[in-house]
């Protein structure tokens, strides 16, 4: 495919839309969680105010270069993930930099942010951050295994590594979705989704009652604002991959909004009513349930 400069502007527009969508969606999700507890919940625009507030803080301290680069890496991971995945199928504006092997690159970017964050949080020197990082890396590694296996399964199934082609193969009716053509791979991937969304029962990384919020313990002001941006962007970008791979992609923004919200709600609904696992329990859970399902998915294909 050829590269045109206008694509940069289009990609920036995609990122802008997704960030705004993410800001509002996370607020709505928090509101739903609050309603379960019987509360009214935060206003939907609260995330914007928090973002401005954090940028407006006057004093900042740094713990070194990596401390500064940590959130930047994390955000790069989120934006990178989004940019190499076609957000809207069939749209010239929002297919971003999708290319033939983008599935592999996307898998790489899922990890990239976590690793960058680990370096940055480690530099902050806070023991809670260090414990959180070691927990996070252990759990992400275990949780992403089923996803990797599921991705192998469906790339075997569709004989391609291009997300665009996978989406194309799923068009033409709801029963062409991978959800129905390969339910086992979808199940394996959903394990990974629930496991990496930092929600109960797999939120041991940030567990406030054990290690007050883990890796970001020392982050504040503008650093925190960057991480907040990533916190709303990254889940959406990840959900976009799931949507493309398993749920037939989206052909316009409305479909995008509905599907992403629905997939995201899976992890939220699981999270609201469960306490959290210990880290070795959650790793065991993924190896015991996620891994066999992923292997089964490959075998079935």
């Amino acid at each position: 495919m050829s590269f045109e400069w206008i694509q940069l502007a289009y990609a920036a527009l995609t990122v802008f839309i997704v960030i705004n969508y993410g800001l509002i969606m996370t607020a709505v999700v928090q509101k739903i969680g609050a309603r379960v507890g019987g509360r009214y919940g935060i206003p939907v625009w609260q995330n914007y105010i928090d973002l401005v507030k954090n940028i407006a803080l006057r004093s900042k301290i740094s713990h070194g270069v990596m401390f500064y680069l940590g959130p930047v890496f994390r955000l790069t991971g989120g934006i990178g993930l989004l940019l190499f995945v076609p957000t809207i199928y069939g749209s010239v504006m929002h297919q971003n930099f999708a290319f033939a092997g983008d599935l592999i690159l996307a898998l790489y970017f899922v990890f990239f942010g976590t690793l960058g964050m680990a370096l940055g949080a480690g530099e902050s020197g806070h023991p809670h951050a260090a414990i959180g990082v070691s927990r996070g890396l252990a759990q992400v590694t275990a949780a992403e295994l089923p996803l990797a296996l599921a991705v192998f399964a469906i790339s075997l199934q569709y004989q391609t590594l291009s997300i665009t082609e996978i989406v194309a193969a799923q068009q033409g009716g709801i029963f062409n979705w991978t959800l129905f053509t390969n339910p086992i791979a979808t199940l394996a991937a959903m394990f990974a989704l629930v496991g990496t969304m930092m929600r109960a029962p797999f939120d041991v990384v940030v567990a406030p009652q054990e290690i007050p919020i883990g890796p970001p313990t020392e982050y504040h002001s503008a650093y925190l604002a960057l991480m907040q941006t990533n916190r709303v962007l990254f889940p959406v970008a990840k959900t976009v991959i799931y949507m493309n791979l398993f749920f037939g992609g989206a052909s316009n923004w409305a479909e995008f909004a509905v599907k992403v919200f629905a997939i995201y709600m899976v992890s939220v609904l699981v999270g609201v009513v469960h306490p959290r696992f210990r880290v070795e329990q959650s790793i065991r859970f993924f190896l015991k349930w996620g891994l066999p399902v992923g292997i089964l998915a490959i075998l079935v294909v």
Partner: protein
Amino acid sequence: MKDIDKSFRKDTETEFPLREELRPRSVTAPDGQVIEIDPLQDYFCQEPPKVHKQSYFKIVEDFYNWARAHSLWILGFGTGCGAIEMRPLMTPRFDAYRYGIQWRPTPRQANLLVISGYLSVKTLKRAIRAYEQMPSPKYVVGLGSCTINGGMYWDSYNTIKRLDDYLPVDLYIAGCMPRPEALLAGFMDLKKLIRKGKAEGANKYAENFDWYKANQKSVIKDWDMPDYNW
């Protein structure tokens, strides 16, 4: 009430010895290297606080103040018995989240320190550290009569009487203990102060730094930390 013992004199002579783990010593690292450490010098950053100027444009500052007012992140540090009324504040009946008030577990991400009730001398030390670690602009709310003037514990040897001697207080909420409605009203008043740009406690602390430190050190006898700890 018993009469005061006029002949009683507080012991002002005795110095509290430095704790053993804070004395200078040499350490052999696992690889055999010998390192000299002086914990008080090496473990802390010694930089004094700065007075932070307001934004150059008034309209920008006003916008920032608006955002600060509507996003109050409270440090979840229950210093006294008033903390028990903070919990209903987060739950269905009163739900302070509606007003952009949240609880953060780490001082780095909080900008409102609520002193929930009396402060014993031991807690005062921790409260000062927590306050100094928060990013500026930061606000302090004293909760209950005991932060205003000792309240119930006016004759106790271990609780401070006036919080504003030790930390720059923006707002007091009276009562013993104040009801959640009073707390909500207090936070609304604090919002008004912030929007008017009158809540500049952090700058006041930096300007009168020596005065605050002298007060703090007159109460905390074992001052084994640097003057300003980030």
